[in-house]
């Protein structure tokens, strides 16, 4: 009997201690966040949406169509279309498609990429209404120059070496001009973008890029793809894109040698 009573009191006391411990949590700050209002603080190496970078200094597209990522992808969700340019005898990128509905964000493609072109961004909000819209093409994938700068900085990736200005006869005149124009133009555009909105930059910058795609007419020739893609990705820097155009051709010309 005494045993029973002491056990009963012991049990009740344990329950009381449990209740008190739970009640103590009244005064602890919640650990959850109001997600859509405040973005989570993601690690730099977070494996989110895949994207293609451009050279943050010059704006050249970094993809060299080596197809390493296409080969390594366990889901086979990457599809690269390229062709060999008859003049320069180089591979030229025509289209780059990633099916984000199929991708499992393992990050293997980013590991094998020799030019640090394909990266995992910190963006994870890709919900959409159809499977087809989850297939991202080159335009949707390519980041703008300041976004690329942001990610190169954040992931502590070495900056790609700027292409030695090849005096390819046609572009020779334009190239020096572009180089001259760059230092002035880049800080003015890239710096505020990267500083002001570090977290939400990618999604926000994506929206204008998408809307722009409608206006831009479909590129028929390989070389133009890149020229087109840049204006959309960086709508505010219209003047700058002009100077980019000649440069965009150049890296392709150099690739086989590099």
């Amino acid at each position, binding site marked *: 009997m005494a045993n029973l009573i002491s056990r009963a009191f012991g049990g009740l006391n344990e329950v009381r201690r449990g209740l008190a411990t739970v009640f103590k949590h009244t005064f602890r700050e919640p*650990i959850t966040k109001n997600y859509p209002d405040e973005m989570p603080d993601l690690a730099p190496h977070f494996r989110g949406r895949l994207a293609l970078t451009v050279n943050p200094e010059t704006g050249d597209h970094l993809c060299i169509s080596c197809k390493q990522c296409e080969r390594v992808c366990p889901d086979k969700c990457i599809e690269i279309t390229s062709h060999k340019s008859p003049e320069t005898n180089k591979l030229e990128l025509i289209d780059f498609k990633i099916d984000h509905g199929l991708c499992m964000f393992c990050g293997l493609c980013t590991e094998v990429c020799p030019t640090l072109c394909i990266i995992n961004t910190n963006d994870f909000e890709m919900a959409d209404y159809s499977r087809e819209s989850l297939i991202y093409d080159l335009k949707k994938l390519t980041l703008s120059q300041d976004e690329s700068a942001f990610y190169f900085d954040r992931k502590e990736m070495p900056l790609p070496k700027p292409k030695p200005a090849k005096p390819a006869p046609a572009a020779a005149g334009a190239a020096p001009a572009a180089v001259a124009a760059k230092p002035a133009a880049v800080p003015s555009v890239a710096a505020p973008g990267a500083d002001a909105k570090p977290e939400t930059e990618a999604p926000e910058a994506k929206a204008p890029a998408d809307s722009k795609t409608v206006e831009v007419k479909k590129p028929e020739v390989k070389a133009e793809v890149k020229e087109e893609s840049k204006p959309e990705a960086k709508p505010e820097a219209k003047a700058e894109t002009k100077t980019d155009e000649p440069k965009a051709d150049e890296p392709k010309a150099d690739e086989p040698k590099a």
Partner: protein
Amino acid sequence: MFSNGDEIFKISRLTIVWLAGIFTIVWMVCWALGIALPMLLTQQLGDKAALTNEILRAATPVIAILVFIPINAMFMVLIERRALALWTVRKGPNRVGPDGNFQTAADAVKLLLKEDITPTGADAVMHTFAPILFFAPSVFGAVPLLAAVTNNHPLFRVLNLPTGIFFVLAAGALPVVALVMAGWASNNKYSLVGGLRSAAQAISYEIPLVLSLITVCLMAGTLDLVKITEQQAGGILNWNLLGGGALTGLNNALAGGGAKALATSYFMGPISYVCAGLLVISLIISFWLYLTGACAEINRIPFDLPEAESELVSGYNTEYSGMKFAIFFLAEFTNLFIVSSITTVMFLGGGDNPIPPYILNNIPGIPQMVAAIRDSYFCSTLHIINPETFFATLWVIAKVYGLVIFAVLIRGTLPRFRIDQLMAFGWKRLIPLSLIVFIIVVFAREFVICHG
């Protein structure tokens, strides 16, 4: 300590807003139907309105309850979710409306608009009838409580019964039938097991529950809820929780009666002192017994076996959806509220102020405030506010929702019993204990003057 001050502030604000809203609405309905309309009719029609007025006055409490239950259930669900969120270091519902105030209202709308599915092979009539039968007792079971919780307000006095607690308990025992019906009619084995479990559980736990309440009735010498409340008036020492009037002597001694006052209460010397102590202990045990039994009766954790989610999916309401499920849901929370109200009325002195009047009346400002309210236009002419009822109701609200929050805290902490352990606990522990308490109270009461 208060790193969470923001959330606590939000939750208090939400509670105050909702409570003010609920009780204003309910009281305005009551006032309009029971006071303003009859006054108007009498002015206009004179004696001819007498019959209409009678009918209106009789209908008022029921209508008040019908208005009160859904809004209150919404608030209770919301406060439960917010409180659980607070205790689990989360934020809780905060998207719909300011502070998430309208979350449960939105949920209710969703539930009402959902498709109502009757599973194949189910007994459609019983399936439909079960939620109604589950819900109805909580409506008419609450009626006699109204007078008790409003300090015998003239508007609700009509429906007070001399056998109030008996009626409430009888009504509270009915939903079991509905649960068995729901379980049987669903054509689902989980539901069936859930229904049968609830029957077994309710029958076993009814006994300690009723015995613990009988102890209180024994103390009071009546079954009338209003009388039980009135007897407990006069501060926390008079509450049934603390032995009813067993400590009255102490009370009086505090008030200045001194040794003489003690002597009148404990007239038989040492025996009376011992008995007073026994009474206090027994009634605290009785209070605990009632809480336990009530938790089992209304299927709250740790006794939520009929709807044990991890075992029986959702028990008797597995196959319910839409409106029918909403009614089950509504009735469950209403039952929680009713059980808390009964506890308040039976053990916690109803609308009584825990601070004894001789202390309260000496606090400067309070008597003047009461007098000012009594003299105000609202009170004297429109009869909107009745100071006796007003403060009593405020205390009832505080106590009842305190108990509700405590139930939520229990829900956040304790795991669930197993059915055989539950039965063993009920039959081997609670029932003997409640009988012992009952017998102690029967004898101890003879030696102590309780309730004056």
